[in-house]
């Protein structure tokens, strides 16, 4: 809806009633085969990945999953990935590159997890590695922000040829609460901070950070998923015209131009 304030959108993006990553995987793709593990340390349930078909074509799908029930949400660490989640995503992206499959990511996270183990196992290094790998990945990448886009933890799955945002998705360098406590030493002023941060899909569209804002009028209905499946199929078809060199060069320019005065 058009009239929402920034903070209302933050609340909508965080709502437990929203479809989660797995819902998109289930309703948009067919023949999904989930693939687990980073081959280094473990398997992170906060990131789901595998191979599936989109309109008949094999693609690699990676989704951050928050879970629906309390138990599921805890098991998935509320969608806050550990390094092994990012490394699993990297492994699947490199596998996609090998087999010339496009990569489609669904992003929904408050941020990469802030914990002792996450730091010990190189949370920052895992994100850094994904940014480098994605910037040069020789296969198309589409990323859709479906809820929260929490800073580097979201960007690690969004260095893509097309980045789309749902109407009530938000994308930010810091949470409004974090921003308010740094700025005014008062996390309660998050509402004010949210509007300062320009974190809505329409703000991102204006800054050239997203190409498209996906309406939510029919969010979660079959028509919604069909429409998104169609858009994704069309986007991949438009990228098929490019050589791998053109594709990677265009991705470079896409990020090179953001924020240029």
């Amino acid at each position, binding site marked *: 809806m058009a009239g929402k304030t920034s903070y209302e959108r933050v609340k909508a993006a965080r709502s437990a009633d929203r479809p989660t990553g797995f819902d998109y995987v289930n309703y948009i793709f067919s023949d999904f085969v989930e693939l687990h593990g980073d081959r280094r340390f473990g398997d992170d349930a906060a990131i789901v990945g595998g191979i599936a078909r989109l309109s008949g074509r094999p693609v690699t799908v990676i989704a951050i999953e928050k879970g629906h029930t309390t138990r599921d949400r805890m098991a998935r660490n509320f969608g806050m990935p550990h390094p092994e989640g990012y490394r699993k995503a990297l492994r699947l992206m490199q596998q996609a590159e090998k087999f010339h499959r496009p990569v489609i990511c669904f992003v929904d996270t408050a941020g*990469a*997890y*802030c*914990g*002792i183990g*996450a*730091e*010990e*196992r*190189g*949370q*920052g*290094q895992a*994100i*850094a*590695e994904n*940014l*480098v790998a994605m*910037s*040069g990945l020789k296969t198309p990448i589409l990323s859709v922000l479906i809820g929260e886009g929490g*800073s*580097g933890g979201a*960007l*690690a799955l969004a*260095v893509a040829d097309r980045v789309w945002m749902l109407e009530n998705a938000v*994308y*930010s*360098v*810091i949470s409004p609460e974090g*921003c308010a406590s*740094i*700025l005014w030493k008062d996390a309660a002023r998050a509402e004010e901070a949210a509007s*300062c*941060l*320009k*974190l809505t899909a329409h*703000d*991102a569209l204006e*800054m050239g*950070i997203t190409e498209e804002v996906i309406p939510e009028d029919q969010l979660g209905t079959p028509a919604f998923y069909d429409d998104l499946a169609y858009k994704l199929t069309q986007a991949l078809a438009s990228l098929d015209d490019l050589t791998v060199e053109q594709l990677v060069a265009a*991705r*470079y320019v896409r*990020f*090179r131009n*953001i*924020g240029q*005065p």
Partner: protein
Amino acid sequence: MQLPQFLKPKNELEAGGRQSVPVHRDENEMTKQCPNCRRQVPLSLLWSRHNTCTCGYHFRMNARQRVNFLTDEGSFQELDHDLVGEDVLGFPGYPAKLETTRSATGEVEAVLCGTARINGEPCCLFVMDPYFMMGSMGWAVGEKITRLFEYATEHGMSVVGCTVSGGARMQEGLVSLMQMAKTSAALRRHSDAGLFYLVLLTDPTTGGVMASFAMDGDVILAEPGATIGFAGARVIEQTVRKKLPQGFQKAEFLLEHGFVDAVVDRSEQRETISLLLNLHRGGGV
């Protein structure tokens, strides 16, 4: 060439302990208290030791000091000195904050970029500044570093980067987040060209800088005692509700966990970096 660090005698601290190192001071001289050994250290002594205490504690350096310390005299040719960004979000207080920071530091932005020689070895160099909004990365910082990598790629040169940063610059919102992707893409091209990139992590290197070009070096060195991490210690403590382990997120902790190649004392940095540059001479494809 000096001996590698591991063959050298142990440092003064281990040899004699804190109290045994004499500090001669003139009553009239300005001093600075060392947060490690608590002594009042005369500034002249501190400066003769490149801003390190006799106990081994490494004080921070501003970017200009570090460039002067690392590079051969007169060799630093600065690039993009005047490059500035915009207040893209119209963020409250940001232009004023930039202005006071500029007049306090005499610098235009939180990173210095240029070409230089280190012990005769040519390189492209970027040095971040802890005193300029804690080295935070907005558009201009990301752009300067990106341009430096592009310059280095074009000219077939190695890049040496000294990082210090609280992370992405909140006041530029999403545009600052995107600098992580932009710099990563530029250094990827540099790397694909077969060129060498060395990082020196200094205190503190955290957040979005740590989670991008700080962790992407072919070789990653760190200063002793530097705090290096993705998330802030206080945030982690609040999240996990546990006391953090001793030395958590220090350079030595990252060495132990396999995320840095070596912790290098400031007195050895010129030697170590120039040796590594020399070992990568003739790079490029």
